[in-house]
């Protein structure tokens, strides 16, 4: 049963079916915003924009398609398929190393070195030095028909394929393992705590505690300073205390943890909605990266407790163009506000532009990627060996039976070269097996 299932996974059609099923799964993940990849505000906006489909999408778990059991099962099936094919290839390669293993005698090309007469054993044995001089690896073994001499030259590069497919399987497995076991803490540091706004868009958080993750790992992380693309941390754990400099593209290693500073930061505005004595405040991120400064519109941001969404555009002089939208009616209110100004909403409440801030991201990660990197390196090595090594092999088999000498070979490319090799070998073997001239020789 297990053997049958193992063999079933080796079938190319099964692999193809798994791939074809994976593609629509990945396509859904492209179409529907995914938890963890898209910010919550984008998920909310998508839900509002697709009110009809949203309940089904949520019920079917399509917001988390990449971690859904079905998608993981497909990836697992691909890993099994790759492993099964690799094991099969390994078996073939090992068999090819054994005498007589993969030489398809029935397909070899017969050569009649002695006018159709079968070789006798001494004649066949005399061919071994000829083969060795031509660079062939020789071996001999007995068969039911008698004694056999075999020569083999060249390589089919099959081990490259084995290394590639095995590494690919390991890479997929390592990726899945990493996704299942990684623990990450992610924070958007809204630089609203006493920051200094400097000319070159440089924002600095006032020193102070910003601690998290302590409950999970025992490491306390305190953000001491944060500027654009740089900063410093204070780390305290059982191993001791130290300060570390933060920089983009230079993660900090602390035991099993890795701490990253993001650089896709940008401006955020603090808005306040007031209705009577009620006051709700919330940040709206204006732009993810920076292309073009602040004139990239934000995604629609829902106002809690109202049917409205708000989209903001930061104008060059740091005033804010605010559009309030309602799904059924489109834009229901719009205004250009300066800091501290207020606009009225259709339901009688007001919206105030309180402050302009900035945000960046800090991520703390516990994820060992060494196996994945090793597997990726293995994939590349195997790929290069598999695709670019010379892959041809010539066999010659001399038997004591009536079959005489047999020549055969195969090549992945340059078949003309293979033909030349076979012709040269045929001439050498015929010359070596030609009967010696009688004493006295020809006149």
């Amino acid at each position, binding site marked *: 049963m297990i053997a049958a299932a193992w063999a079933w996974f080796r079938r*190319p059609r099964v692999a*193809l079916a798994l*791939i074809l099923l*994976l*593609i629509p799964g*990945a396509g859904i*993940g*492209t*179409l529907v915003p*995914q938890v963890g*990849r*898209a910010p919550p505000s*984008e998920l909310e906006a998508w839900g509002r924009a697709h009110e009809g489909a949203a309940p089904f999408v949520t019920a079917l778990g399509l917001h988390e398609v*990449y971690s859904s059991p079905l998608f993981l099962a497909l990836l697992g099936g691909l890993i099994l398929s790759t492993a099964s094919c690799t094991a099969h290839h390994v078996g073939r390669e090992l068999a090819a190393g054994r005498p007589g293993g993969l030489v398809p005698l029935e397909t070899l090309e017969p050569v009649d070195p002695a006018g159709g007469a079968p070789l006798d054993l001494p004649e066949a044995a005399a061919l071994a030095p000829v083969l060795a001089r031509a660079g062939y690896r020789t071996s001999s073994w007995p068969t039911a028909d008698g004694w056999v001499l075999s020569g083999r030259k060249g390589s089919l590069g099959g081990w490259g394929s084995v290394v590639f497919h095995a590494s690919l399987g390991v890479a997929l497995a390592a*990726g899945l393992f*990493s*996704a299942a076991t990684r623990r*990450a803490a992610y924070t958007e540091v809204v630089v609203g705590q006493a920051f200094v706004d400097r000319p070159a868009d440089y924002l600095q958080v006032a020193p102070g505690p910003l601690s998290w993750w302590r409950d999970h790992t025992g490491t306390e992380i305190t953000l001491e300073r944060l500027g654009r*693309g740089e900063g410093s941390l204070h780390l305290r754990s059982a191993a001791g205390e130290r300060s570390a400099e933060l*920089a*983009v*593209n230079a*993660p900090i290693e602390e035991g099993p943890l*890795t701490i*990253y500073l*993001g*650089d*896709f930061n940008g401006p955020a505005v603090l808005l306040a909605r007031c209705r009577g004595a009620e006051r709700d405040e919330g940040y709206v991120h204006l732009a993810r*990266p*920076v*292309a*073009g400064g602040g004139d990239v519109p934000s995604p629609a941001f829902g106002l809690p407790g109202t049917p409205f969404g708000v989209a903001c555009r930061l104008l060059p002089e740091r005033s804010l163009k605010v559009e309030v939208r309602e799904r059924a009616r489109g834009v229901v209110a719009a205004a250009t506000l300066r800091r501290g100004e207020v606009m009225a909403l259709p339901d009688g409440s007001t919206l105030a532009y309180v402050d302009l801030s900035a945000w960046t991201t800090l*991520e703390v*990660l516990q*994820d060992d*990627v060494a196996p*994945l*990197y090793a597997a*990726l390196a293995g*994939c*590349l090595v195997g*790929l*290069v060996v598999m*695709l*670019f090594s010379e892959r041809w092999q010539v066999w010659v088999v001399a038997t004591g039976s009536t079959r005489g000498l047999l020549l055969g070979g195969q090549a*992945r*490319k340059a078949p003309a070269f293979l033909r030349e090799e076979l012709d040269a070998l045929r001439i050498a073997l015929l010359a070596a097996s030609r009967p010696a001239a009688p004493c006295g020789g020809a006149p």
Partner: protein
Amino acid sequence: MISQAITGWTAIALYAVASAALIVGLIFARDGAVRWATGAAWTGLAAHTAFLALRWNEVGHGPYLNLYEVGSANSWVAVALLLGGAARQPRLLPAGAAVLPASFLLFGVAMLSSSRPLPLLPILDSAWLVLHACFAKLTYGAYLVATAVAALYLIKDGRPGVLERAPALPILEDLLHRFVLLGFVMHSLMIATGAVWSQRAFGHHWAWDPIETWAFISWICYGVFLHARALHGWRGRRLALLACACFAAIVCAFFGVPYLYTTSHNLFLR
């Protein structure tokens, strides 16, 4: 800026001339037209190189930050691969009948997009990004040439009287396989270097970003191509059609996804 526009549009015009001359030369079997096409393509490549050098000098970093830079650099790689390959193997030149038009169209689209220089953010200023971008350009270039060869194969196979100057079908098939091989290795390196860069910069090696996902899908498609040829004996017309279908996944990843969805690659591809 003006010199960039002059060199860029000069290159596009020369590529257009080369395309027309090459197609005429191939269809009407005129050696003179093919020679003119080769000369125009090389001159266009020189102007294109000058354009990229001027751009690099202006912005202070390589051509990988927006469509203006990415599109022009990708088309440069495709033309350079074609002409460099044809210099060694003249039988490759007829593939230019598809590569040159595709390149001048891509370059034209790039030239019409925003040329506003973008700052090189610290998070992008990494050797891994440079490697990732270089392998991406080689990937697209190799696959474009492979698809052009596949198109030539299909035309020549369907209407034997046309394109008599094009190489014989077995040679076209061999070229198709070689360029897919090159593209596949570059594609693998692009994904691997992107994963390492992403891990160092963002803390995750794979995020199922739409572009990542479609790069993976197209990688699988070309893997299927190689398996179909190596293990299942696919040859000829069927293999050429498969190569064209695989390229559709690449086009989708490069042109479709960035315009339809928000991805972390939007900054570079639109």
